[in-house]
């Protein structure tokens, strides 16, 4: 056992650090939260820079245009970019973390050739059309249909909570192709071009006030059969491939971000005057800061342990669910602590003069989604209880 990075890993880190130090000052200011075209342009320009410098698709295999980095190098990449406060993966998330890896595993050569280079270069933005109004945690209840018509599928239905749909070029779409089959066996995975006739995007307003996600209405949308990924009715298995990526290392950079936020909260508490001193004089507050610092330290240790296990060829089902549950809870507690320090400055999501409140308040509200998206906390606990602790399975859906 060893905490240290190898010489090669350190060399990788130093190269990356140098590149970040040189590149980040050249970036334009981040766009307005609600200006989606500008956000897309900003995120994809960042991806293009990563690509030009050889850092696109760090974890993708080299034969598919990625860097083919080891899990440890991937950890270093996420750690260093977060530390340097480089732009977040943003609109490139689904392409780089879901759709691309899915095409690598389950796509045809033609599909890979068409999409993978464009995703890596930041020329193609994807969204994920899995959830439906009546199929969330119970994803296999999805009802959007696709009926074969010659060499096309004709798709009808509705998707919801589709992040980045407004600016996406393609959507990874789960549809039902065999309504008579058992639920998991009648699902197919399609590549939907977002400009196809019959696709309507209706932005939904989130609790933050922004439109991070949308509703997708699909009316007689024609998708070529050639854009099917995997076999017809085998989409559930293909989707599970996607999930195994989603629950892997997706949150590692966010641990660094948590530490930054916590440090900001501590700084504010030291700077906020009270009757006889500052907020920092309150031992209760200091202890809560300390406990959350312990959480962050522990999560980082767990992330490194998970990465080590992945590097040793183990599949981190347990590690990933444990990590997601605890990370998301900690992040929400940090938000509450920030609000406690801000006091009534927490009543505005926009900056008040000198209060340092805006980003912290927005973050507090935004983290409400963390325990919902990508498998709710309750679903994660079911997974741990059943798959790790071996307790009896939840009652399963049976046809009415």
């Amino acid at each position: 056992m060893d905490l240290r990075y190898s010489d090669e890993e350190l060399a990788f880190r130093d190269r990356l650090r140098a590149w970040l130090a040189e590149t980040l000052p050249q970036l334009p200011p981040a766009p307005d939260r609600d200006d989606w075209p500008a956000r897309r342009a900003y995120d994809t320009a960042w991806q293009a820079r990563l690509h030009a410098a050889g850092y696109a698709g760090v974890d993708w295999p080299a034969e598919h245009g990625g860097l083919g980095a080891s899990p440890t190098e991937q950890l270093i990449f996420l750690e260093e970019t977060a530390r340097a406060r480089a732009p977040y993966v943003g609109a490139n998330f689904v392409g780089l973390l879901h759709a691309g890896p899915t095409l690598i595993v389950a796509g045809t050569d033609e599909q890979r050739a068409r999409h993978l280079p464009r995703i890596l270069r930041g020329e193609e933005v994807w969204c994920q059309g899995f959830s439906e109004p009546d199929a969330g945690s119970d994803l296999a209840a999805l009802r959007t249909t696709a009926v074969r018509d010659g060499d096309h599928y004709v798709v009808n239905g509705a998707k919801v909570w589709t992040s980045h749909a407004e600016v996406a070029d393609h959507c990874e779409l789960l549809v039902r192709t065999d309504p008579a089959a058992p639920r998991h066996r009648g699902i197919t995975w399609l590549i939907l071009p977002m400009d196809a006739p019959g696709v309507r995007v209706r932005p939904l307003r989130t609790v933050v006030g922004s439109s991070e996600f949308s509703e997708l209405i699909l009316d007689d949308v024609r998708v070529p059969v050639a854009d099917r990924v995997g076999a017809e009715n085998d989409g559930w298995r293909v989707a599970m491939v996607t999930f195994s990526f989603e629950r892997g290392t997706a949150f590692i950079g966010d641990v660094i971000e948590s530490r930054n936020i916590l440090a900001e909260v501590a700084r504010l508490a030291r700077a906020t005057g009270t009757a006889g001193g500052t907020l920092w004089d309150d031992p209760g507050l200091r202890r809560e800061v300390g406990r959350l610092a312990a959480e962050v330290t522990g999560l980082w240790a767990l992330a490194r342990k998970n990465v080590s296990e992945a590097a040793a060829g183990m599949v981190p089902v347990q590690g990933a669910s444990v990590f997601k549950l605890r990370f998301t809870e900690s992040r929400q507690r940090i938000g509450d602590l920030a609000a406690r320090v801000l006091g009534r400055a927490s009543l505005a999501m926009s900056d008040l003069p000198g209060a340092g409140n805006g980003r912290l308040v927005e973050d507090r509200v935004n983290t409400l989604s963390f325990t919902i998206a990508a498998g709710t906390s309750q679903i994660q606990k079911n997974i741990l209880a059943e798959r790790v602790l071996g307790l009896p399975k939840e009652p399963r859906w049976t046809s009415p």
Partner: protein
Amino acid sequence: MDLTLSTDQRDLRDGLRAFLRDAWTADRLRAAADSPDLDRGAWRALADLGVFGLEVPESDGGMELGAAEAVLVFEELGRALVPGPLVATYLAAALLGRPGAATGATVVTWADRTAPVQVVEHLAAADEVIAAGEDGLWALPAGKVAGTPAGIPLDPLTPVSHVVELPAGDPVGRAAAWRDRGAVLTAALQVGVAQGALDLAVRYAGEREQFGRVIGSFQAVKHLLAESLVRVDLARAAVLTAALTLDDPAAGDLAEAVAAAKILADDAATAGGRCCVQVHGGMGFTWEVLAHLYLKRAWLLETGFGEPGVHAERLADRM
């Protein structure tokens, strides 16, 4: 970077686990709870396995391993609820080279001079007491420390004595290493206590039936257990990292790693112990079921080598 166990480490852990499973059965623990005098034979058996000499140089009969191995071993000791002043005796051997500590001939306990109330564990069974001040450490023959045994200790397997005055003793070292290592080893015991409590609760949840199904099929119960699992896994990663930082201080931030490990492990053990009691229902409130022993041990260990609040303040000061 590699945080996975080597084959040797796995063998060390598995060997000890198998030994403890046979040595510290539920019946043995119940018996010990009713007559808690330290079993010297059992103590020497641990020493013979090398438990106290893990970090002692081979030339002195030890195994010359590191803190990483120590936390694997201490997790197993905690999981089996092995009684005795394990951490103090271990540190007396590893850090201070006190005669007889590694071989099990000398039982060493400790007292924290900075504590407002002196309550010493296993004083009657001990041969030597290490008194830790703000900076220094002193060794005292246990016979020189006058203590009043508590009639009813909280943890039935850990007799405690109230000590009014600690005599001076011989200076034997610095307190900093004692406290850091002690916190990490105590945290490792806590991870074991938490895991043991979880194992017991999961087993019961898979057997006990109500409403015509095992209670482990009820989601309220499942989620309690899953939450315990999350706490144990997080604490284990933190403890392992702290131990590796003890072995290679330049590879990390030792003060941060130690404090985080103790905070998270105390939380895992105390909340895990409570969970175990709760999942057992009325049985959990009986002396007979071991659930209370996990929780009481967790409460005991939480007070040693810095309670979580103290460590939390340290972490806050570093932010």
